[in-house]
């Protein structure tokens, strides 16, 4: 049965019963099967099979059935609306998962290789205000509750930090342990207090904007594989300005590289490429533009490096 037919049956169900039923479950499983193909970062090592997709669909259902039911019953008035709303919910769930994957890696990196590893990072003991948070030895441990901006600025101010190339198709770049250690310390000093790990993750994710990207959700496997190969073995990168080009290029995720050739295109073309609505397409492009703006060198090579990166991304 097609997704459209399932949506029509699901619409009848929610309006008659005030809840999801068999057709809705079938619809969600069918949509999960279609949508997972667009989320390369979530692909299991052995590829997508029926069990993997159904596991994900079940997890989605368990997590969101209350809210989805309320939404479907109140606005699911036609088959088209039910189909569209269900697809959005499934896609948003997968985007959350895709975003969580790199953020989870940053969190693990901080917890396992930084905070618990080096003696200058201390945890606020139980019984004290801010218990469980982390702070820098010699600094106050009172919980920081201020703006993130000065913390992000402090993270950027640490000198000599080099981003690391995408190490394989699904491991976003951060930096060396030595640089990350210096950055974490600088953030604590700027905070003059203790931070939750989640706050620290947020700051680090902003410092390395290419490290936590959801746009991997929008390209297919073939494009992903092609784009990760471009320029991999080009010896020219070792020379002069090539290093800057390489640094920018390497920090872009595969899906960001796939979007770069469309930076000057009309939004409707990007909508077709990404299979998303106007606002999502606009935001995806805007984000890549902003990211490039932050990654490109702030000197007279900026335009040349930008043109070279765009050209490289267009080669795929």
């Amino acid at each position, binding site marked *: 049965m097609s997704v459209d037919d399932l949506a029509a049956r699901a619409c009848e169900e929610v309006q008659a*019963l005030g809840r*999801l039923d068999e057709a809705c479950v079938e619809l969600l499983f069918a949509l999960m099967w279609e949508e997972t193909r667009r989320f390369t970062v979530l692909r299991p090592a052995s590829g997508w099979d029926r069990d993997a997709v159904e596991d994900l669909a079940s997890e989605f259902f368990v997590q969101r059935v*209350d809210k989805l039911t309320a939404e479907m019953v109140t*606005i699911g008035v036609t088959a088209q609306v039910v189909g*569209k709303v269900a697809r*959005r919910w499934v896609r948003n769930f997968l985007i959350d998962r895709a975003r969580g994957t790199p953020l989870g890696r940053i969190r693990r990196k901080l917890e396992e290789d930084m905070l618990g590893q080096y003696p200058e990072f201390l945890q606020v003991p139980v019984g004290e205000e801010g218990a469980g948070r982390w702070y820098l030895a010699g600094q106050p441990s009172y919980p920081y509750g201020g703006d993130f901006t000065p913390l992000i600025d402090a993270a950027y101010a640490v000198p000599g930090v080099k981003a690391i190339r995408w190490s394989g198709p699904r491991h976003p770049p951060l930096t060396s342990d030595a640089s990350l250690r210096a950055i974490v310390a600088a953030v604590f000093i700027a905070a003059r207090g203790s931070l939750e790990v989640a706050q620290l993750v947020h700051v680090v994710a902003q410092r390395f904007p290419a490290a936590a990207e*959801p746009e991997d959700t929008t390209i297919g496997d073939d494009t992903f594989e092609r784009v990760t190969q471009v320029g991999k073995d080009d010896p020219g990168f070792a020379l002069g300005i090539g290093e800057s080009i390489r640094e920018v290029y390497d920090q872009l995720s595969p899906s960001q590289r796939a979007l770069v050739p469309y930076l000057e295109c009309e939004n409707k073309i990007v909508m077709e490429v990404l299979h998303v609505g106007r606002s999502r397409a606009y935001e995806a492009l805007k984000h890549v533009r902003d990211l490039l703006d932050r990654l490109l060198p702030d000197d007279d090579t900026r335009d040349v490096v930008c043109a070279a990166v765009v050209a490289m991304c267009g080669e795929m």
Partner: protein
Amino acid sequence: MTASDRLQELLGLAHEASQPQMTGSALRERFGLPDHWPLRPGAVWRARWDDVALLVLLVGTPTATTITAMPVTFDDSGADGDTLLVTAPACRGVRLTVWRTLRRDLPLAVLDRPVDELAPAVIAWTTGGPAPHDAQIGGPTLPSVAPRSPVRADLRDDLDALMAAVPALKLAPPRLATSATRERVSPSDEQLARLMDRLGVGLPVVLDLIDGKRQPTQDEAAALLDIVGVTPEVAPPPAELVIEMYHPRWKVTVLDLAHRRDLKEAAARVAMANGAFALAARQTGEQTPDWRERLARWADAEGLMRS
């Protein structure tokens, strides 16, 4: 776990999450007749147009044709410092997310049905007041990066669609005399007879067409062109009628008409306005028609749903 076990487990969860009090029939019972529907700040309505449907919180009092509203969703993905998580009284504890930066003036005609009502404190928050004690801010206000919530992006597109939805029915000056168009075409008795014969209708229907009191169908237009040599200009429905049709009380009727004639909502609105206008033109002398009453009479004559 077998596939059957898995399905049964999920269906069990679906049963626990049921919201029978939010179905169309339950809402009809709860909110009563359309004239009693809460068209006021704090009311949560379902707004819809073609394949766009979403919930909106009314935050202003309606004008003749518009209402200020902001979207509310059950999906709180990407909620931030400008969103509020509130418990919807009618939704059995499931929280709604109010997106206050997406405030829009929507055409009244997109409002479909009231769903719930939220406390005045929520409305106060939408204009910068404090968060109500029983509600929660959706998340932190993040500096330096624009929030890229997919829910917000979809809402923006849906709101754009709703704002552009209602077709601009041509507004005629109030009390435009239908005789203004009547004089433009003056068929002979022989032409009138040929028109009746070709269309298989009586004289009153043909005169309505000649007088431009309603939009001719494709066949009717062809017949007029062949026999009279011209398609009379159709007088647009008067402004009072168009404005009356913006009221949500007519949404059900319009959607029923659209369903029965397999039309888009925009076309159904035009058909209904023209139908009621033609009816009024036949039945009203120089008096100002009561358009609500005329629309009701036309809908009843067509056997359409009224609420």
